[in-house]
């Protein structure tokens, strides 16, 4: 019974019959731990490559969907239907001059975008892509995700501070204010789900949603906690800084975002991080509320594959919904945004938690 | 009687003559009494100041105010004759706020000074511009070069010295 990707690789190698041979080879050298490190590195490499490919695809998808909603074509020239547009964008960004503004703190300025990107990548560790397709099933998976997401405001502040630009700093402070205001209802709503499951592990949350009621309705938490789902979705969109909460990137607002002074590869890092964050957050929403990789089992196809497909389908459904929202709705003013976060969402999230706790204690579910 | 005749009836000392501007009643007034006339005109119900025009005739400068009353649906045109060498007249900005920018524009392009205006600066041309273009004796052969300084304010010169920037 495999529980994470490491074990899956071991199982695959054993099935082929190679595992014992390779293990014996390393044991002869007396360095068995090297094999473990290699397998872990392979797992991480697969995840990173998957994230990078997804990010490229998502940037194309965003532009295409934006165009289709607005009755135009979108990227069409580079590659079939414009599929190579992200590659063209990447090449363009690589070719730009990498400037560091005068008076900026060189080290922090250079490191900040990479800190953002790495902190987003770290979120992918406990994310269950499919049955036993998880890098590491942390016992405190959900808490870990929320904690790692808290690194993002720090790195934004670093980027804004290191730019030596009054407006970047103001932009960074506003972004952090937005981030913090919406992490609180996000965390409270996530706790309400944990109350149902009884464990912080992402795998346990997914397993708790397997099965059906009355044979038809899947046991997803969205049906048990509709208010929680809505609050979590709004909090995630606000945390990511997408429309309707994207005053940071609105060119129409005069205070430029915290990444004004960035160009070239560092700028690319911020955008890669944004799309990776989008995918990660959608994955978390799917795991917590939409049943994770659960779905009807198809005979003769390995369950690892079908679960991966279900997960991807559900994640893209959430992503497309976010993009649809972006195309349709105008943006919210910053003080209305903070009002919404502090005065409306936190009380509602607490109410949601209260009801969940009551329901569980009363033994209803 | 039309609105210009009514004005003459109410303020006979200030109105020099009454006529028409094609199809609108025109009253030529003394420039010193503009504030009194403005008050009376506002009382008569002319709440919309449409435009203030400055015209440079050969021997004088005229400033023409076009009014309209939304309630009574009447037009009124006031004309004041100003001295060409130093044209100046009191500002009516306290009665109609739109006069703020209209008078600034007239000052900018025709060169009429409006006494009592809170902020009589050039509005369409940059601050350091020389001359008033809509005067008939404006010399159009003089080139003036405009650039933007460090603080965002305009720098104007006639010899192009502000165009060269050291690197």
């Amino acid at each position: 019974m495999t529980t994470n990707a490491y074990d899956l690789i071991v199982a695959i190698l054993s099935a082929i019959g190679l595992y014992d041979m390779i293990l014996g080879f390393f044991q002869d050298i007396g360095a068995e731990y090297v094999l473990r490190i290699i397998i872990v590195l392979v797992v991480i490499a697969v995840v990173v490559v998957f994230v990078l490919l997804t990010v490229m695809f998502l940037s194309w998808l965003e532009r295409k969907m934006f165009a289709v909603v607005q009755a135009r074509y979108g990227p069409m020239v580079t590659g079939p239907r414009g599929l190579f547009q992200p590659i063209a964008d990447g090449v363009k960004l690589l070719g730009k001059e990498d400037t560091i503004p005068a008076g900026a703190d060189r080290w922090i300025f250079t490191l900040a975008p990479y800190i953002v990107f790495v902190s987003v990548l770290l979120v992918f560790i406990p994310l269950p892509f499919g049955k036993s397709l998880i890098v590491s099933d942390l016992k405190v998976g959900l808490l870990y995700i929320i904690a790692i997401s808290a690194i993002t405001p720090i790195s934004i502040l670093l980027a804004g501070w290191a730019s030596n630009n009054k407006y970047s700093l103001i932009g960074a402070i506003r972004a952090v204010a937005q981030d913090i205001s919406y992490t609180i209802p996000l965390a409270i709503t996530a706790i309400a789900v944990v109350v149902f499951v009884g464990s912080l592990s992402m795998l346990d949350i997914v397993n708790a949603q397997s099965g059906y009621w009355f044979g038809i309705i899947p046991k997803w938490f969205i049906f048990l906690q509709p208010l929680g789902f809505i609050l979590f979705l709004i909090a995630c969109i606000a945390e990511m800084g997408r429309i309707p909460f994207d005053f940071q990137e609105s060119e129409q607002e005069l205070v430029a975002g915290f990444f004004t002074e960035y160009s070239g590869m560092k700028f690319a890092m911020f955008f890669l991080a944004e799309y990776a964050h989008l995918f990660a957050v959608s994955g978390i929403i799917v795991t917590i509320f939409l049943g994770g990789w659960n779905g009807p089992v198809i005979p003769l196809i390995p369950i690892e594959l079908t679960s991966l497909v279900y997960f991807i389908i559900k994640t893209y459904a959430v992503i497309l919904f976010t993009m649809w929202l972006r195309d349709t709705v105008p943006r919210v003013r910053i003080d209305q945004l903070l009002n919404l976060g502090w005065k409306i969402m936190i009380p509602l999230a607490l109410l949601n938690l209260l009801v969940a706790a009551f329901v569980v204690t009363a033994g209803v579910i | 009687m039309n609105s210009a005749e009514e004005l003459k009836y109410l303020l006979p000392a200030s109105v020099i003559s009454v006529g028409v501007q094609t199809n609108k009643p025109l009253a030529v007034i003394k420039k010193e009494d503009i504030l009194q006339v403005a008050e009376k005109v506002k009382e008569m119900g002319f709440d919309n100041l449409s435009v203030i025009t400055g015209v440079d005739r050969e021997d004088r400068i005229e400033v023409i105010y076009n009014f309209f009353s939304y309630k009574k649906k009447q037009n009124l045109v006031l004309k004041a004759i100003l001295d060409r060498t130093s044209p100046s007249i009191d500002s009516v900005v306290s009665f109609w706020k739109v006069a703020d920018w209209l008078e600034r524009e007239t000052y900018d392009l025709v060169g009429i000074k409006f006494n009592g205006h809170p902020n009589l600066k050039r509005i369409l041309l940059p601050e350091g511009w020389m001359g008033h273009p809509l005067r008939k004796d404006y010399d159009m052969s003089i080139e003036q070069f405009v650039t933007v300084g460090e603080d965002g304010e305009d720098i104007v010169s006639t010899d192009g010295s502000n165009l060269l920037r050291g690197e």
Partner: protein
Amino acid sequence: METETFLLNVGPVHPATHGVLRFKLRMDGETIRDCQIVVGYLHRGTEKLGEMKTYLQFIPYTDRLDYIAAMPNNYAYVRAVEELAGIEVPQRAEYIRVLVMELNRIINHLVMMGSLLLDLGGSTMIMYGFRERENALQLYESLCGARMTFNYIRPGGVREDLPDGFIPKLNEFIKDMEKRIVDYEELVNGNEIFLMRVKNIGVISAEEAINCGMTGPSMRGSGVDYDIRKEEPYSIYPDLDFKACMRREGDSLARYLVRLDEIRESMHILKQIVDAMPAGKNVNQKYGMAPNTGAPTAVTSYFPRIFTPPAGEVYCRIEAPKGELGFYVASDGTTKPYRVKIRSPSFCNLVALPKMVEGLKIADLIAVFGTIDIVLGDVDR
């Protein structure tokens, strides 16, 4: 807690402002305490040019004032010249003039609605608006060869008669527009976020609006029931049945809704014109009126080659899509005007802006500014 205000500069090059316009804002945190507007970046000396060109040569310059909707600019100047010289215009030409002007009103309001939503973040509306605008611009291209600077209305009539197939295409455009406007209402009017951004933002009372020289749809959004087309009608407006659109609240939402209503009224007017247009395409004349012949046709009366109107002054105002557009023309009996003064609606509408945004946040400045609907060619001339 003691805080200091700081000076913030918006523009002149900026994606939100509808041209080159500069705001000098005195800010207290997010709130605007004082707003100074710096204009003049697009000043091209149109009034001085008016004194150096003949009456007919000046008409293309009027196109460049409000370049989003250029026909009313043409018309206001031409009507001033016609009043000065006492030129009569044939009926069919009047109908054609009102037709193109009302179509201009529709496309102008589409741009305003689109740019307002674009500034607020919902970029879909401007794409839809420009899709409709494209159909109208193709109509104009078939009519006078230009999409933006028409140079179509001349003293005495219009330049050319309507081409074949214009009226059926216009009817198609109206039918299409009627469907789409329902789309726009559903997309925008009920959207909570849009309402949060524009409701009760930038309120101006009726007296202040009149005092500050605001005219047009922005003034009618504050409850002043005055439309020059109804109160001082010109051309064939006395024969047309329409109402002046008005709202009472005076906030940005009211100004937006007034323009939406005006699009409907303009379509109503267009339908009446298409039904009532007097017939008469002169089959002898291939080109309507060229300055070379000056001979009368079905769509223009006699216009001499060397045109010297009698000495005098005239001030003529019309209801342009943005407000009250007025031309003051003074003539001294020669072929060139003695003085041309343009009363542009955008210039005067801006006077009220500092009062409207005091106490609001920066994001609201963008929303209010979008509803006043100015274009810099009009402000700076």
